[in-house]
């Protein structure tokens, strides 16, 4: 790469420019964020369920999970969970004789699980609040109709709690897309910030490329905000605006 390239050459598509790398990075960032969000949502449901279970041991575990994770920097947790996760997966695979000593753990899955576990703690608090906001009489009515747990959750609790969870979950989505940039420190996935940094380092046009990278992140944010407003409108249909 020639450091004296013009702006348009640097942004062209193909092996002279960096547009293809950046756009692939953008696409990978979106994929990673969606996966993190879904994994986080599952951890969050389990965490919220534990905290509201009424069982002392489960409540304690849920409490420790959400408190400890939220008190520590994401960067530190990402390192810790990523290394611990890959080490554990490796030793399990080797121990069971499924794979040899040279087994490589998929970086995408490891990063997604690590960040998903972190986001699960934040999600736990959002979902716990949302579940508590659903009037208790609704659940009791469902029980009186003889609905079992699965049906009660699917037909009564879930649709109503999502309305309350929307605000917090929208914020968490925005944070997920931004925190997925932390993956750059692992150096194993070419997501948007990694692609941006590679482009900046190769061309020495640091300010230019970090500016472009920032614009692409902003694009994700603004698009998400527009979609979020629509979803909120959809979930609030049937409720009068106060």
């Amino acid at each position, binding site marked *: 790469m020639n450091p004296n390239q013009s702006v348009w050459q640097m942004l062209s598509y193909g092996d002279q420019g960096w547009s293809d790398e950046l756009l692939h990075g953008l696409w990978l960032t979106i994929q990673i964020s969606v996966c993190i969000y879904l994994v986080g949502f599952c951890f969050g449901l389990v965490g919220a369920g534990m905290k509201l279970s009424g069982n002392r041991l489960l409540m304690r575990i849920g409490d420790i999970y959400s408190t400890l994770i939220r008190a*520590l920097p994401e*960067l530190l947790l990402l390192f*810790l969970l990523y*290394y611990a996760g890959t080490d554990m997966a490796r030793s399990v695979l080797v121990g069971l004789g499924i794979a040899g000593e040279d087994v490589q753990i998929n970086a995408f899955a490891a990063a997604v699980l690590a960040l998903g576990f972190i986001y699960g703690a934040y999600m736990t608090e959002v979902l716990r609040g949302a579940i508590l906001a659903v009037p208790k009489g609704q659940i009791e009515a469902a029980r009186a109709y003889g609905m079992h747990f699965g049906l009660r959750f699917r037909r009564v609790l879930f649709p109503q709690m999502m309305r309350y969870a929307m605000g917090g979950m929208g914020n968490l989505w925005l944070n997920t897309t931004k*925190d997925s940039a932390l993956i750059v420190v692992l150096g194993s996935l070419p997501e948007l910030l990694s692609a941006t940094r590679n482009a900046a380092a190769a061309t020495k046009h640091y300010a*230019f490329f970090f*500016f472009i990278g920032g614009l692409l*992140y*902003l694009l994700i*944010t603004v698009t998400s905000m527009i979609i979020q407003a629509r979803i909120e409108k959809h979930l609030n249909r049937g409720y009068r605006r106060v």
Partner: protein
Amino acid sequence: MADFLDGLQYLATVALPALLAAIPTTLALTLISGAIGNLLALPIAVARTSRNPLLWVPAYCYILVMRGTPLLIQLFFIYYGLGSLLPGTWVRHSWLWPYLREAFWYAVFAFSLNTAGYTGEILRVGLNSVPHGEIEAGRAFGMTGWLIFWRVTLPRAIRIQLPAMVNEVILLLKATSLASTITVMDIMGTRTDLFAQSFRTYSPLLGAAIIYFVLVFLFTRVLNWVERYLNKDRLAPVAVVLPAGIP
């Protein structure tokens, strides 16, 4: 087991002392950026609530950019971007240069601007939620616009949003760990250093986790105390004990 004990011994004798020595850097990053960021947030929030498009549009864009892009890319933009442009300008020979050779001040710069965006938005909501009657009362007393702002609107807005602003400082404390990616030797940076020296993964990470946890815990305690002190007139009475003799 031997591995575990060895790691524990390393944690206690090497990792923890080194990590503890890095606490002042993390605290300095948090407190300096927090102070500058909160001060900057005020004009941003005021501009954002203005009806003049020349004021609120730039403020809106600033808040959107700061909250809409990852802090890490802002940090890289300022450290690598400005850091590579500045030496070619007048700054190279000015009094600023001794500061701008150190990654620490770039980190402070980035964190201050970022916090200013987040806190600016918090303050905007606060300014908008001051009860109208209180501003009218100020007017009835014959106060001018600025006096009302300084004596009524602003103190009230800050008190309303104090919990959110306090939360922001704690988020900032956690976010300062990102400074380690631009070679600042804070707690997280020291952990990277220890890792490079010893090739131990877990001991330095666990040591850093313990220290961050204690710091966040202490910060929460102290800030909650400050919050309660500043908002003490707004707290509901805990219990009212009626004097004897009243039916």
